[in-house]
């Protein structure tokens, strides 16, 4: 009783140390009521400073994995443990509210979490700056390109300054150039904020480029068949994609993906 009531900021794990565990899956399984077994025996750790990417064939349970991590849907066996104060979840489509401007959309989550009006505004402005949407605050989602919508969606999650970031193929619907540009921006954000990320993609090249670790999942019921540590440092530049090391690793991941598929 003597300790002062923790305020929001002091309650957070000392601004989060790199290496703090934010997500742990042990032997997680998911069976749907209709009998579909989506996941089986999934083990997974994500720490602050980890950028873990999951690649796997369509329908192997990648989205299900994220839904369990976020608490949207419970695992049917095993344990999933989240040690994050706040979770950011970026869906495949931007899910912006079409009647709200970019600014208002970015403010939404802070609003739902009961942040003060001024703090909300400030958090939104900062996030909009970070994703490069300054000048578009007043626009409605219908006036934005797909890439800009994704940026707005990203900014919305950033306002909460999450310790754990879940991405479900966020750039899957974008063209190559936009996707690569957003990859670079996300790497920059990751380096600046040091959150833990669990990122899902269909693109092996995106996976290798972004991650500190790539997990390859098998077809249904999905489980992790191989794990690759990505040795490239925190600094990633587009030239990395043309190095032999990159090509070699991407080849290995592709190979594992094909093995797991068959």
């Amino acid at each position, binding site marked *: 009783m003597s300790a002062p009531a923790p305020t929001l900021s002091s309650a957070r794990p000392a601004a989060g140390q790199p290496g703090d565990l934010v997500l742990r899956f042990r032997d997680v399984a998911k069976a749907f009521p209709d009998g579909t077994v989506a996941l089986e025996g999934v083990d997974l750790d994500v720490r602050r400073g980890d950028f873990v990417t999951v690649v796997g064939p369509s329908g192997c349970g990648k989205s299900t994995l994220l839904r369990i991590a*976020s*608490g*949207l849907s419970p695992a049917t066996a095993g344990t999933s443990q989240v040690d994050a104060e706040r*979770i950011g*979840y970026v*869906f495949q*489509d931007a*899910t912006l*509210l*079409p*009647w709200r401007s970019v600014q208002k959309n970015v403010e*939404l*989550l802070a*609003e*739902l*979490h009961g942040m003060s009006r001024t703090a909300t505004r400030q958090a939104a402005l900062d996030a909009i700056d970070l994703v490069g949407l300054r000048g578009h605050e007043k626009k*409605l*989602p*219908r006036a934005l390109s797909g890439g800009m919508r994704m940026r707005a969606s990203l900014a919305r999650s950033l306002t909460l300054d999450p310790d754990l970031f879940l991405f479900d193929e966020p750039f899957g619907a974008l063209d190559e150039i936009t996707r690569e540009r957003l990859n670079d921006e996300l790497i920059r954000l990751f380096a600046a904020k040091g959150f833990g990320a669990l990122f899902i993609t269909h693109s092996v090249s995106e996976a290798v480029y972004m991650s500190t670790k790539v997990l390859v999942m098998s077809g249904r019921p999905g489980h992790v068949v191989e794990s690759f540590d990505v040795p490239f440092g925190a600094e990633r530049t587009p030239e990395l994609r043309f190095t032999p090391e990159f090509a070699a690793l991407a080849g290995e991941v592709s190979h594992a993906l094909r093995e797991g598929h068959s």
Partner: protein
Amino acid sequence: MTTTVHPAEETQVASTVDTPTTAATAATADPVLTGAGTAPLVERRGRGRKRVTDSLLPIAVFLGLVAVWYAITYLVLDPDRRFLMPAPHTIVTDALLDGPTMDKILPALGRSIVVTFTGLAIAIVIGMVWAIAMSQSRPIERSLFPYAVALQCIPILALVPLIGFWFGYDFPSRVIVCVMIALFPIVSNTLFGIQSVDRGMHELFTLHNAGRTTRLLKLELPAAMPAIFAGFRISAGLSVVGAIVGDLFFKQGDPGLGILLDNFRARLQGQELFLTIIITAALGFAVFGLFGWLAKVAVGRWYDQSRDAG
């Protein structure tokens, strides 16, 4: 990868497919006049002219109808039966410009407008509360939805005598008829709008622990607004019908447009009858237009109405 077909393309394809006759005539007739059934290339070339013809066509039809009207009045009807279809200009001279007639019609119009808007306002409040209650709780939906459907199925006209029997024949009864006729579209559209909210958006709110009320106010109601306004517009038209029907039935108290219509009919006052019909129609158009405009102001900014117009 799936190919998504834009709705506009769908309709375009459909219209070119199901109009072989138009296509056949297009070969001979002026392609601009035949309009939608022609090839896009022709449409694009003739767009400027097409817009002019588009607005001239209804006017031409109108003039044609007036001509037919005159023909009936002067060629078909015996002179002593012309009150059945008085010539258009006599409606203006004998009714519209006739002081005593307008002294009857204008107050009746005023009363009908009051009934229409009172009924509509009550229907909007009851309908939205009803639909919101159903959207928030399964048991409430289960227990109340059948009654919404019943409201739609029971011919309200059958209940009108009962309403008069219980509530008298004046203002309250007329408003009640109006409410009953206008209620269903508001209930069904509001409910439909709330229930069609994107699942991903719901999950976003779930992830961030949004409560019922927050979800309703920040997600469900705003998202449902286009559907709700579409319901308002339908109900607005119906509430005019309700106001006239109530009047026609009760035939007592201060006359609204319905009573007036019936009086003019009974007294064989053709010009007055026609003018009242035209004014009633204008009221319907005005109310419908008003709500179309309100919808545009409320949701037109973010909601593309042309998408559900087709």
